[in-house]
Structures are given as structure tokens and as C-alpha cells.
């Protein structure tokens, strides 16, 4: 079972406590943007096999949105971080670089 630590309340939440929210760090394109950007924002996804940055909500806990870095090919979790970031923090990248060296 997937277990993620909520960065706000610090609790380890099981998958049943959490709601998945899809790919993280999407750049929003709204009215006035060109068709290609709007399509990319609404529909196109990296769907990475490997490191995947994604949104989760601690639905049956504190109720807040947070972000997670997870490997979609191994189910390894590299860490979670608050949603108010435009890109993953450096320590997450360090953990991703360290993977497999355990």
C-alpha cells in the first residue's frame, strides 16, 4: 500500500486516506493563450515511467493539497513537499539522484 507523509500535519497517510490529483507543476494557460498551450495544459501529460511529480490531497486528514515525487516504475517515494512551490525542492532532487545507492 502506498504511504505518503503529509508535509502539513506530518502524519503518514495510507492511500485510502489520500486522494490523487494527477500531475504536478502544470503551468496554467487560460483565456488569451494560444490553442497549443491551452491543449497542453488541459490534456497533454508527461505520464512518466520513472520519476513522477504529482498532486495529492490529505482527504481524510488535514484536507490540504500537497505534492509528491514518486517512481511510477518502482513505486518508490522520494518525498513530499508543500503545494505552494513552483518546482520540486533541492532535497527531493538529491534523493532522486541517490536512488538505488541505498
Amino acid at each position, binding site marked *: *500500500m*502506498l504511504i505518503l507523509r503529509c508535509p502539513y500535519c506530518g502524519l503518514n497517510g495510507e*492511500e*485510502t486516506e489520500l*486522494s*490523487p490529483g*494527477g*500531475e504536478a507543476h502544470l503551468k496554467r494557460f487560460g483565456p488569451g493563450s494560444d*490553442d*497549443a498551450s491551452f*491543449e*497542453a495544459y*488541459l*490534456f*497533454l*501529460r*508527461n*505520464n*512518466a*515511467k520513472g520519476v*513522477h511529480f*504529482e498532486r495529492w490531497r490529505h482527504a481524510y486528514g488535514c484536507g490540504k493539497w500537497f505534492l509528491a515525487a*514518486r517512481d*511510477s*516504475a*518502482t*513505486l518508490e517515494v522520494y518525498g513530499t513537499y508543500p503545494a505552494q512551490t513552483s518546482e520540486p525542492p533541492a532535497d527531493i532532487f538529491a534523493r532522486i539522484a541517490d536512488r538505488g545507492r541505498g
Partner: protein
Amino acid sequence: MRRFSAFAIAREALRHHEGWGRTWAKRPPKARYDVIIVGAGGHGLATAYYLGRNFGITNVAILEKGWLGGGNTGRNTTIIRSNYLQDPSAAIYEKSRDLYETLSQDLNYNIMFSPRGVIMLAQTHHEVRGYKRTAHANSLQGVSTEWIEPDRVKELCPIMNIDGPRYPVLGGLWQARGGTARHDAVAWGLARACTDMGMDIIQKCEVTGIDRDGGRVTGVQTTQGPIACDKLGVVVAGHSGVLAQMAGFRLPLESVALQALVSEPIKPCMDVVVMANTVHGYMSQSDKGEMVIGGGTDGFNNYTQRGSFQHIEETLRALTETFPMISRLKMLRQWGGIVDVTGDRSPILSKTPVDGMFINCGWGTGGFKAIPGSGWGMAELIARGHSPLTEAFGLDRFREGRFIDESVAAGVAH
């Protein structure tokens, strides 16, 4: 290829069955093909089969990173139906169901198509309205389905409890010519027919790169070396995003795990397929007597062919109310497959930004039923550049807002 017939069985019986030969050939890849199909699952093999049968294109290789039919073709719950709401869906799924009717004869290989009938249960008033609407739409589309009342549901499937306190059966959408087929046999029969036409099926050959020259595909890099081609068809379900990335574009879909399970074998007790979308479960009985049960998808991206246990629990918990007798059944095994799900829950059969490269993906949780129809349309798309069956399923529909919205029509289960 030696044809199967009653005469052939009698002849082989007299000589210790030594004359059957291989079902499909094992050959090393050639340096170049007219068409390369990536993915030797049902859809890839059907595409190759109809390229040869309908268009005479037989210089074709089908590349498979694992083994033939070892992906979702070998992992699904084998349900065949065509009771979709939207016109383009009804057209391609009904074409497919119709092709399944005679596929054993066409392939000279028994795929065990069993048109035993499919009931989609309505267990909420919302579903009653939805399925009545689908039945009306189907009658306009020439798809034979009907709305049936609860007593008819009980008559068709006596082991069902239709008075459940939480999810009473309020009726159902009945497709009498829906049913099941033997999933492995579909892959094996198509592979045999492809070999017979001189095509090469190359297993354990993973595509690692897509070669392009001036925006046009020229070949693929594989674990068995480079192979050149004029046209490339990518038919790899869950890994479509990975292949698209190799060709430099993204797709409007995400890959998630979908699970199924089977019980221990029991005596025949259920001769129809029942789908209960409200509780995310569907069930049929295999020829071996196992109850074949499918559940819902996980909500997060996953390539591991393993799903979360709570979905199995949820499916069984809900199904035991409608089928009380399965509460005492032991479950034999459970497995997962990676399904590629689009936003409108409809597939993509399309040209791509790379000239000469075509993609067939996004079948999500319901690809098995579509294998012959998808192959028929995809072959026409590759051979002619357009097909009436596939034109509504292009990649451009997302940008243009022409969704084929089946997520409401079909609920979650397929």
C-alpha cells in the same frame, strides 16, 4: 500453415499428433519492412492481420518487448459488448463485435467466442435513466440492445440478489449478442494468421528509439538492433506515453493499474456476463468454472502491473451483496495490467506529429472487446491515411473539443 479441420484431427490422431507444427514462426528481424507494428498484443496483431488481409501489405514486422499477448491481452476479463452511447464508439465497437462473430472461421482458429449475453445492471435511478438512453441510442445506431426489468434480470441470472438493501437491481441494459472469448486464443489465432501471410513476429524485442528524418519516421532502434520501415504503428497500450516521448511528443492520457481476479472453479452457475458499474465490479464464469471478476482502476500513475489491495476488497465487498453466493468463494489469483486512460474515456487511433507514424492507444479499461474493429480501422488508417471507423478518434479532437464522452455513458467498468 496447416489448416485445422475435423479431417486434420483424424489424420493427426493416427500419427501421434506429430504433424501440427508451430503456431507462429520464430524468425530474426529483417533490416527493413514496409510497416512495423510495435506491440504484439491483440490490437497490434489485429492491425497487422487486416493490413495483410484487406490491403495486401504483408512485408510487416510486429515487435514485442515481452511475449506475445502477455500484456493486457492476457490480463483482461474477456468481455465483448458494443452498447456504447456515442455514435463513433457504437460504430467501432459494433464492427468489432460483428467481426468476433466469425473470427474463429476467418482465422481457422477457435477463439471460443461465446455470445452468452451481457447485462449492465442499473442499481441507481441515475443509471436507469442512463441505460434507457443508451438503449434508445443503440437502436438508432443499429446496435441490438434492450432495456430489461428486474424480473427478467433475475430470470437471466438466478444467482443474483435483486432486492439488496443498498444496491437493489432496478433493471438492466441487455445485449444478447455480447459475451466473452478466449483472450489468449485471439492473440494466438491472429499471430498464426499473420505468420501465414509471411509477417514476422519478433518477441523479446523492445523498441528503444524512433528514428526520424525531417519529421518523417525512418525506422526504430531495438534491443535486437535497428530496423528500418516506411510506416510505423505504435499499439502498446500502457506504454504509449513512453513511445510517444521517444518520438518527441506527448499524449493526452495517463497510465494506471487495473486489476482482476478469479475464484476457485465451481460448477456452472452463471451463463451471462454481469456488469455492475455502480459498485465497480463485473463478473462472468469461465469455461473452467472460475468466476472472473474485474474491478476499478487505481487513481495514480503506475507502470508496475500491480494494483492496490483496497480496490480488490471494495469490488468483492460490493459484489457480495448482489451475488451472496460468492461470499464463500476462495479467490485463486489476482493480477494487474497497465491501462492508458484518456480524458473522455475513448481511444485514440490517429496520425501523429511524426509523418508515417500512427498510434492506437487509450483503450483504457475496455480494449479487449475492440480488438478486431480496432485492427480493421487501424489497418485502413495506416494503408490509406484515413478510415471512416477511426476519423473521430484522432488526436486533434482534444484541441478541437470534439470529445467522444463515454465516461458518463459507461461509468467506470468496461
